[in-house]
């Protein structure tokens, strides 16, 4: 009982801090609507054509990106599921995990490198705008959707394949009676997740769109704060963004059938005709080339660019250290907060209070609904009248990124921690194994692998962030993504390409390093 109380107190503290970081800025935004100088009449943006255009474009590009990512992903996932013996299967599935780690701005540079002027498949100026945004979003979300959908084929019992074969089902009938029923359970969740990711995408739209014709709510918030100095407009946009995200999140929760972050992607055995085999191979290779091309092109361009000149600048190293600092501290705080929340929710779960446990997990994932730029802009309007927010850039950016990473921690660490708790809690109690000893002898050996994965994911996410740092960063406190953005703004494309490559190398090194150092070799 005492342990439960200690857990309740620590989880309560975490939730209080979370509320302060997430809810206080929102309260600040709401409050701003009523302050002198911003009478409701001033908020005429609600009816303005600008808002309507931004809103339409936000939803339109998210819808198109979702369709262009998820529909091909179904075909590619099906091909992967069928081709258990495909020689490059493991390698390609690892490649498909990369976009989880690759910073958005690096992917943008890769897309520009392939599809921009002088690229392998040049789209010229038409890259900038909807085309470029779609390409970058599909680069990120097609592999993600493949990895999320693929496990659905594994849920089909092997006996069903055998029955299908015995009943003489053709490919269409197998799809109709075996595959589609398994797939449709996860499909709405995956589609909404991709829709939400594209709706709140910032770096991609800022760098490849951003003009009046192709601005999303997220970018419009940033522009209204940083360029127009108009907090009232930012408030309207942020509230609009919040309402849409809440709506999407509610629908997603209703359909909640999203697989965990990292599921072992095995294969199923099922009959495949020779022609289908060739088609599957073609599909897998095409998807592989689509994902690999931007990274490969970026690598080639950067190695042929002013590599030594960029490496020789002090600014690059300052940005690199800042990026690393923000990434590692955000990971530390996020994993610690997630750990305490999950410990409490696991205790509640074991005590039979499953609804309360789910509520705790849900509270930790609240940032799914509140985009970072909304938190950032809320903090901006809340804090800027009282002190110089630019001087507090590091704590603010670390805090927001730690909160942003919390859903990843909960999804990747949660299942293992809950299972561990359910299996060993009573044994621990009978052995009086608690506190540090429990962590040292039980939790660390069994949970270090998901802990490592959680830390690596949050670090990569924070190091690639462009939204919050673009709002609060200055030239002196720039991270590598902000430096790339600044280089792009100054038309220093070759330098930006080199910086992007270095950011990619740093992100991958930190991701794999953390996963290996913390994760080690699990005893489970």
């Amino acid at each position, binding site marked *: 009982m005492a342990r439960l109380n200690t857990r309740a107190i620590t989880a309560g503290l975490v939730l209080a801090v979370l509320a302060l970081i997430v809810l206080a800025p929102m309260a600040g935004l709401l409050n701003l609507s009523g302050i002198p100088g911003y009478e409701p009449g001033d908020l005429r943006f609600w009816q303005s054509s600008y808002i309507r255009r931004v809103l339409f474009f936000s939803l339109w590009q998210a819808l198109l990106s979702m369709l262009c990512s998820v529909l091909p992903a179904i075909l590619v996932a099906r091909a992967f599921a069928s081709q258990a013996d495909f020689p490059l299967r493991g390698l390609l599935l690892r490649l498909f995990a990369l976009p989880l780690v690759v910073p958005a701005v690096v992917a943008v540079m890769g897309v520009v490198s392939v599809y921009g002027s002088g690229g392998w498949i040049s789209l010229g100026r038409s890259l900038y705008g909807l085309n470029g945004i779609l390409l970058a979003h599909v680069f990120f979300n097609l592999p993600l959707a493949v990895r999320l959908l693929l496990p659905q084929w594994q849920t089909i*019992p092997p*006996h*069903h394949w*055998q*029955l299908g*074969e*015995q009943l*003489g089902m053709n490919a269409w009938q197998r799809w109709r*009676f*075996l595959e589609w029923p398994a797939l449709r359970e996860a499909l709405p969740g995956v589609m909404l997740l991709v829709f939400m990711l594209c709706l709140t995408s910032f770096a991609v739209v800022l760098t490849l769109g951003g003009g009046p014709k192709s601005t999303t709510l997220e970018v419009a918030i940033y522009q209204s704060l940083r360029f127009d100095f108009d907090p009232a407009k930012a408030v309207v946009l942020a509230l609009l963004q919040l309402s849409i995200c809440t709506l999407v999140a509610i629908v997603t929760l209703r359909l909640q059938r999203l697989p965990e972050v990292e599921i072992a992607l095995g294969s199923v055995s099922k009959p495949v005709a020779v022609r289908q085999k060739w088609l599957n191979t073609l599909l897998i290779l095409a998807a592989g080339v689509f994902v690999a091309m931007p990274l490969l092109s970026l690598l080639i361009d950067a190695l042929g660019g002013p590599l030594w000149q960029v490496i020789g600048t002090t600014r690059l190293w300052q940005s690199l250290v800042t990026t690393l600092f923000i990434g590692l501290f955000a990971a530390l705080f996020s994993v610690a907060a997630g750990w305490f929340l999950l410990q409490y929710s696991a205790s509640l779960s074991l005590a039979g209070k499953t609804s309360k446990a789910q509520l705790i997990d849900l509270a930790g994932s609240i940032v799914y609904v509140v985009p970072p730029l909304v938190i950032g802009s809320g903090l901006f309007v809340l804090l800027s009248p009282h002190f110089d927010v630019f001087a507090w850039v590091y704590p603010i950016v670390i805090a927001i990124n730690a909160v942003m990473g919390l859903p990843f921690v909960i999804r990747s660490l949660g299942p293992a921690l809950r299972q561990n708790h359910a299996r060993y809690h009573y044994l621990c109690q009978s052995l009086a194994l608690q506190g540090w000893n429990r962590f040292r002898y039980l939790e660390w050996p069994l949970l270090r692998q998901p802990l490592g994965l959680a830390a690596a994911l949050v670090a990569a996410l924070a190091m690639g962030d462009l939204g919050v740092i673009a709002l609060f960063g200055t030239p002196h406190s720039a991270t590598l993504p902000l430096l790339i953005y600044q280089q792009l703004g100054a038309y220093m494309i070759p330098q930006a390409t080199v910086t992007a490559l270095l950011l990619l190398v740093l992100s991958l090194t930190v991701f794999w390093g953390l996963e290996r150092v913390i994760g080690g070799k699990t005893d489970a």
Partner: protein
Amino acid sequence: MLEIKQLEFAYTTEAAPTMQFNLSVAAGEILSLIGPSGSGKSTLLNLVAGFLAPSAGQILLDGIAIETSSVASRPVSIVFQQHNLFPHLDLYTNVALGVDPSLRLSHEQVDTVAAALDQLGLSDLQRRKPGELSGGQRQRVALARALVRKRRILLLDEAFAALGPALRAELIEVVKKLVRDNNMAALLVSHQPRDALLASARTAFICAGKITALEQTGDLLDHSQLVEVRDYLGLV
């Protein structure tokens, strides 16, 4: 009717010995297969069904070799322990799939499905989903599908393992009638010697990929002198 001659198979991934089977099953007979786990009972059923390809030997039905036929064209129906039904389809559709997977059924075929459901006592449940049924009812549906398929060989792979003793006995009676009325040859794999006693006049004992005994069920279970059989039955 069903003859298995020198049928050989070896798993390539394990350092397992080559399995070899010889047996025959008459029309209207249920032959039980018992033996320790991993002895090859389910492998034999998978070979007959066509899920595995033998390296040598023959499977004959009324003297005609079927071991090279595709799974769909073999005169075989199989009932597993679980996952026999598609959970998102109602009972009627699950059974109708056995007639034609395109579900384009003629009036006559619709009547066949209805008759099978009626015969298995499922007429009132035909619009229910498998999740709304008991374990015994689900296995009845699988048997109804086997009935509408009108295949001469019926394979039962631990089909009643998840059921209680009374329900097992009841379903075994259903299967016996089904096999007798439709002149089928059936192979029943079970871990329960009592199932063999209830279902079969003859029972084969499989050990390490070979049929080491094939006798009257009562004799095998009560009087076998084979060490493997006595060991399996816990008599040693």
